[in-house]
């Protein structure tokens, strides 16, 4: 049972990360930089660095999740990243700034809907960390 749950979680999260990476990489990276900058959480140099690096990180995590490579480590990185996004979105939503969330390209404001969606993704990533850890312990015990 744990095996099927792990498979479903990593495929869903992997597909979403691949889609998120694609929506960012198909447009000029400075468009994503503007979305990050609107949060007003990072200094200028960090905005440019995150805008250049994050889409590729999402792509790498998406590929690793779908392929099931280094699953526990990948799941932990995914959960950490999603937790970071979630904190930034809660901050923006509570400030009522109405900015783009920048999750899947432009045109989607931070809203209750995006918070619920990202909360579910975060919960799925945490569940994946737990289930992949359980599977690892089981395989170690069998060995």
């Amino acid at each position, binding site marked *: 049972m744990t095996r099927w749950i792990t498979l479903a979680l990593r495929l869903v999260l992997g597909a979403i990360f691949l889609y998120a990476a694609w929506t960012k990489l198909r447009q*000029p990276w*400075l*468009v994503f*930089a*503007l*979305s990050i*900058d*609107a*949060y*007003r959480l990072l200094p*200028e140099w960090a*905005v*440019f660095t995150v805008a250049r690096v994050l889409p590729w990180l999402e792509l790498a995590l998406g590929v690793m999740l779908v392929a099931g490579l280094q699953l526990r480590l990948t799941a932990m990185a995914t959960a950490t990243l999603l937790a970071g996004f979630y904190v930034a979105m809660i901050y923006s939503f509570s400030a009522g*700034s*109405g*900015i*783009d969330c920048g999750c899947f390209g*432009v*045109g*989607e*404001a931070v*809203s209750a809907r995006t918070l619920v969606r990202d909360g579910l993704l975060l919960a799925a990533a945490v569940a994946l960390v737990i289930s992949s850890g359980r599977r690892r312990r089981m395989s170690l015990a069998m060995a």
Partner: protein
Amino acid sequence: MKRIILFALLGGAAFAQGRLAAFSTGKALGNPQAPIRIELFSDYQCPACKQLHDETITPLINNYVNTGKVYLVRREFPLPIHSHALAAARIACAAEQIGKYQQVCDQMFRTQESWTQSGDVLGAACSVLSPADAKKLRELVSASQASQTVESDLRAGQNEKLNGTPTMIITKVVRRYPVAGPVSYAVLSRFLDSLQ
């Protein structure tokens, strides 16, 4: 020969003015033929709009609009959650009719906190005008033209499916980039340079 030189000089000056000078017709600023067009939707009572106005729009006007690189069109998008935003938008549009849009716009954002609390939006706007202009503004605010302009801007924003304010719609030829939120001048200018 002197005439030819004179004509050339006058022609050159007119061309330079056409290319570089900011054509201030109130809500629209700059050269309509500029390669980049920015439509800015804002709400005078929104703190993020004030932040964008204070930190980003002023240097944008100086460095991109006045140099002929950007044509800036300001549009009113008063949000229903802000009780005085609609009145402020009407006042700004009335100020445009007496050629004082920029002064009133600057003053609205400068004194945002004060009139948000007191509700005296018109008083705040008039404080930056001469008594004669203030009198004209008071008359024009109650006329229908200002309301019609606000309605037209609101419709334009609804057509763009805006999520909130401030939002800039940056257009270069056929590519359009909606930018929501109080982005910094440093990041915006780098983006605009990349479009040149």
